[in-house]
């Protein structure tokens, strides 16, 4: 797809789907006792139905989506701002969405601002925010 089309306002980015296994959460967070991410008994004691993924795993997925869109212009010059609005549990399946919200000139390029959100397998939003980066 031509760059101009991919960054046009309203363009919907290809979504990503991620399966959050306990093993991936363990590697992300590091296994330790008394952690709501890796100790199921502790997570239940703290009021959750099971262990939770770290919110930052969702930001990593957004980073992947933005890097696919903008490449080096996200790795250097990118931004993410997200709020985590619902817990993501081990075993959940997240779908990451993005829609181009705005573009504006910046230096020799164009800053592309994308509205981003993650949804679980029940259709509930778990994280919302914006991400941006530089298109050549």
């Amino acid at each position, binding site marked *: 797809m031509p760059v101009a089309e991919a960054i046009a306002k309203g363009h919907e980015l290809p979504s990503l789907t991620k399966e959050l296994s306990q093993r991936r959460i363990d*590697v992300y967070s590091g296994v330790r006792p008394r952690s709501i991410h890796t100790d199921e008994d502790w997570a239940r004691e703290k009021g959750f139905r099971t262990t939770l993924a770290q919110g*930052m795993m969702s*930001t*990593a997925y957004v980073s992947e989506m933005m890097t696919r869109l903008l490449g080096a212009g996200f790795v250097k010059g990118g*931004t993410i701002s*997200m709020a*985590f609005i*619902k817990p993501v549990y081990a075993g959940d399946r997240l779908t990451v969405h993005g829609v181009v919200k705005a573009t504006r000139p910046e230096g020799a390029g164009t800053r592309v601002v994308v509205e981003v959100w993650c949804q679980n397998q029940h259709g509930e939003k778990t994280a919302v925010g914006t991400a941006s980066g530089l298109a050549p």
Partner: protein
Amino acid sequence: MTEFPKLSYEALTVGEEFVSDPHLVTPEDIEAYAFAVDDHHPWFSGPSPFGGPVAHPTLMANQALHLRHSKYVVHAGLHAKMEFNFLEPVRPGMRVRSRGRVIDKYERRGRQYMVTEYVTEDETGQALVRGQFTQMLIPEGTRHAGR
């Protein structure tokens, strides 16, 4: 010798600063992170527009998020908000550290939050990532009501 008091809303002071130990970024770190987030971009292990492998941009986020553990025993908490500004790529072989400062604490709907601004730097002091995050405190002896 560092003492580690229990983190509480009352103990926390706006303006207090944290610093992590330096961490040598290894190819194994980058590979493990790629597995954890199921993103195996070729730039993580081969040539990139930056002249060699680079890490996933969010690789060192946990170093920043864990800054408060350098001073406190943290009972439990939830991450509420996160902001990143990716200034320079993180590369294998760098020794990176994060510094942070508590810029706010507040209570809302019976819950307690702290806000930290941070920078992650390489061994020369060059800023790689800047941002801020908001963490909810789950005090000892309490349960989170769920969201």
